C-alpha cells in the first residue's frame, strides 16, 4: 500500500507534468567528472519541493531539473558545497534540505535516537541491578524483619542464649 500511495502521488505529478522524462538528463551532466560527482552528492540531499519526498536527483519534475542545473551552475562558478546549500536555503527555505540542519527547532529530531537509546539503557541497567539472581535473592522484602534479625544473629555467630 505504501507503494500504491506513492505511485498514485507520483502519477498525479506526472499528470501535472505530462512531459515524462527521468531524473538527471544527459545534457545536464558537467564535463568535469569531479564536479559532477559533487553535484550528484549534493542533489541527493536536496528535496524536489513539488514532489513527495523525492530528492532532485531522483525526480522527473521540471523544478527538480531547474534545481539540478542551478546546483551545477553554482559549482561551476566555484562555490563550495556549503555555499551551494546556503544559497538554496536562502532562496527556498529549509524545506529544500532532506537532511535537516542541526538547530534548536530540529534538536528534538536529531537528539531523539541518542536520548531514547540512553533512556532505554538506563532503565535496563536499573532493572538488571534489581533482577540478577543474586540481587533478587538478597532484595529487601524477600525476608520478614524477624527473619532478617534471625539471619543476622546466625551470621554474626552469636546464638541466642
Amino acid at each position, binding site marked *: 500500500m505504501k507503494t500504491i500511495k506513492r505511485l*498514485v502521488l507520483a502519477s498525479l505529478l506526472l499528470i501535472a507534468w505530462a512531459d515524462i522524462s527521468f531524473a538527471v538528463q544527459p545534457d545536464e*551532466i558537467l564535463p568535469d567528472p569531479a564536479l559532477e560527482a559533487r553535484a550528484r552528492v549534493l542533489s541527493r540531499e536536496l528535496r524536489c519541493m513539488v514532489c513527495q519526498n523525492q530528492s532532485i536527483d531522483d525526480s522527473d519534475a521540471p523544478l527538480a531539473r531547474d534545481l539540478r542545473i542551478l546546483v551545477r551552475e553554482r559549482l561551476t562558478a566555484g562555490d563550495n558545497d556549503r555555499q551551494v546549500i546556503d544559497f538554496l536555503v536562502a532562496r527556498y527555505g529549509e524545506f529544500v534540505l*532532506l537532511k535537516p540542519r542541526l538547530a534548536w527547532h530540529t534538536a528534538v529530531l536529531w537528539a531523539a535516537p541518542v536520548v531514547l*537509546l540512553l533512556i532505554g539503557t538506563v532503565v535496563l541497567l536499573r532493572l*538488571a541491578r534489581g533482577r540478577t*539472581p543474586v540481587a533478587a535473592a538478597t532484595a529487601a522484602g524477600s525476608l520478614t524483619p524477624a527473619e532478617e534479625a534471625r539471619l543476622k544473629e546466625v551470621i554474626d555467630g552469636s546464638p541466642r542464649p
Partner: protein
Amino acid sequence: MIAELGHYALVLALGLALVQAVIPIWGARVRDPSLMAVAMPTAVAQFVFVAIAFGALTACYVSSDFSVLNVAENSHSAMPTLYKYTSVWGNHEGSMLLWVLILTFYGALVAILGRNLPASLKATVLSVQAWIATAFFLFILLTSNPFLRLADAPMEGRDLNPILQDIGLAVHPPMLYLGYVGCSITFSFAAAALIEGRIDPAWARWVRPWTLGAWMFLTGGIAMGSYWAYYELGWGGWWFWDPVENASFMPWLASTALLHSALVMEKRDALKVWTILLAVVAFSLSLIGTFLVRSGVLTSVHTFANDPMRGVFILAILVLFIGGGLGLFAWRGAMLKQGGLFAPISREGALVLNNLFLTTGCATVFVGTLYPLLLEAATGGKISVGAPFFNNTFGPLMAPVLIAMPFGPLLAWKRGDLLGVAQRLVAAFAVSAIAVAATFAFEGAKPVLAPFAVGVAVFVMAGAVTDLVERTGLFRVPFDTALRRAAGLPRSNWGTAFAHFGIGVTLLGIVGETGWSAEKIVTLKPGEVVSIRQYDLAFEGLVPREGPNYRELTARFTVRRGNDVLAVLEPSKRSFPVREMTTTEAALLTRGFSQLYLSLGDQNADGSIAIRLYHKPLVLLIWLGALVMVMGGALSLSDRRLRVGAPKPARSAAVLQPAE
C-alpha cells in the same frame, strides 16, 4: 443488484460485529458459557458476510459494471482480466474492504482454531476483534462505501492508474494487509490479557504463531513493494525512506521486537509487561500505517482537510484504539507479575538488547516520519526529513544489532558465557575477515566502509551457520550422527538460523548495490553502443507496439559481453490514453545476483533517445534475503510446539483425566 447485495452483506456484518463486541465479553465477566459461546458463530458468519461483500465488489469489477461509482473510477473494460481483479483493492474504498475481509478471516480462524484456549480468554479476544471490526465497518459504510451507484452510468470507466497495472498490485497490498491485520490478533490477545489481568507462557505460545505469521507477511509484503518500486519507477531505487514506506517498516520493526520478546516470555516467563506493550504498539503502528497514509496527512497537514469527514473518522479510530490500548496498559499492566530472573549476559539479555535497539530504531523512524508534521503544526515552519537523516540515524542503530546477532542464539538461557560463545564463533570471525580482505583486494577501498559492511554481512551469515553446526555437532561427531541431530533439531532453531542468515543476505545486497553500482546517462542514436562494466549495449532502434489499453514505444538493445550476445533488452514507454499518462517500463537483465537495469527517457526529433543504464551488483540479494527470512518464519511456524500447543506431560494428563 449485486452491488446492493454486497452493501447489504456489509451492513449485516456490522450487526454481527456489534453483537460479538458486547455479548461474549459480558459472558466472560459473568462466567456464562452460553454467552461466551456466541462469539464462535458470529465470528464465522461475519467472515462469510464480508466475503460476500468482497465477492460482490469483485463481480462488479470483473463484469465492468460502471454504474458503480468505484468501478467507474478505477476500471476500464479493455483492461486485462487480472487487473480487473486487482483493481478491486487498487483504490481507497476497495482496499478498506480487503482490510476487513482479512480481519474477519483471522477472527474466524481464532474462533475455529482456538478450541484449546481458555473459554473466557477466547471470548474476550473475539470481542476485542469485534470492536476493531465495528470501527472499520462503520468507517467503510459511512465514509468510504465502495457500493455507491451512479445515477447516469458512463459508457466507459476511467481506468486504473497505469502505474498500478502491474502484477505487483496482485501481491503487494494483500500481503502487506495480511501482515498489518495479523498484528490486530496479537493486539486483541494483549488487550484480553490486560482485561483478564492474567498472562502466562501459554498465552505467549498462542500469540507467537500469529506474530510470526504477521511478521512473515510484512517481510514479504515490504520486500515485494520494494522490488515493485525498483522496476516500475524507472530510476532503480529500492528504498526511499518515504513516509509511506516507513509506515510499513515501523510495524515490521515492532513485530520483529515482539517476536523476540515473546520468545523470552514463552521460555522463561519474563518480559511480560514489555511483550504486552509491544503487542499494543505493533498494532498501533499498523493502524497508523493503514490510515495516515490513506488520509494524506503525511504529505501535508493541509491535505487532511480535503475530506474532513474521513479525516476526522480516521483520527477518532486512531485515538480510540491506540489511546485505549495504551490506557488499558497503563491501568492494568502493573497487575501482571514479572517472573524469570536472568543475568545480563544470557540469551534473555541478548534478546533484551535486540529489543532495545529495534525499538529505538522504530522510534527513530517514527520521530523522523512525523517530525515535519508536528513542527508545522506547532510553529508553522516547514522542514523535510528524508533519506540522509534516516541513513545517518537508523543505520548506526542497527550496526550493534547485526554484530550481536550471531552471539544471541549461541548464548545459554539464564546465564551465558560470552567468551565461550566468542570462541565458538572464531570460524565465523575468520570467514568474515577473509571477506573484508578479499573485498579490499578486488574492489579497493573506494567506498571505504563498504568492505567492512561486507564483513558484517558475512559474519551474520556465518554466525547463523555456526549456530546450526554447534547444535548438530557437525565436524565434532560422525557425520551421520550430526545428520540425525539435524533432523531432530526443533524447527524453530532452523527458523532462527534461516531468518538471521536472510538478514545477512539482504545486508550483502544492500552493500553491493549502494557501494558498487555503476551508472550511465546518455543519449543514443540507433546503431550506437554504450558500455557499462564489462557489458556493451547496442541500440538497434525503436519499435512502436499496441497493448490492450495502451500504446508503447519499445527500444531494442542487444547486450554483448565480448563477442557473446547475452540478451536483447526491450525497455519501453507506455502511454495510456484514458488517463493521459505515461509509464516507463525498465528492462532488466539478471546475471547471477546482479542486474543490468535500463530505462528510457525522452525521445528527440533526430531519432535519438535518452537512456539511463545501471549495473547493480548483488542487488537481487536484497529481496532474496527477505525470502530467506520468510522461509525462516515458515520453518519456525511449523515447529512442533506451536502446532501441538502447550505441552502437557502425558502421564500426569492421564492421571488427571476425569472419569467420563
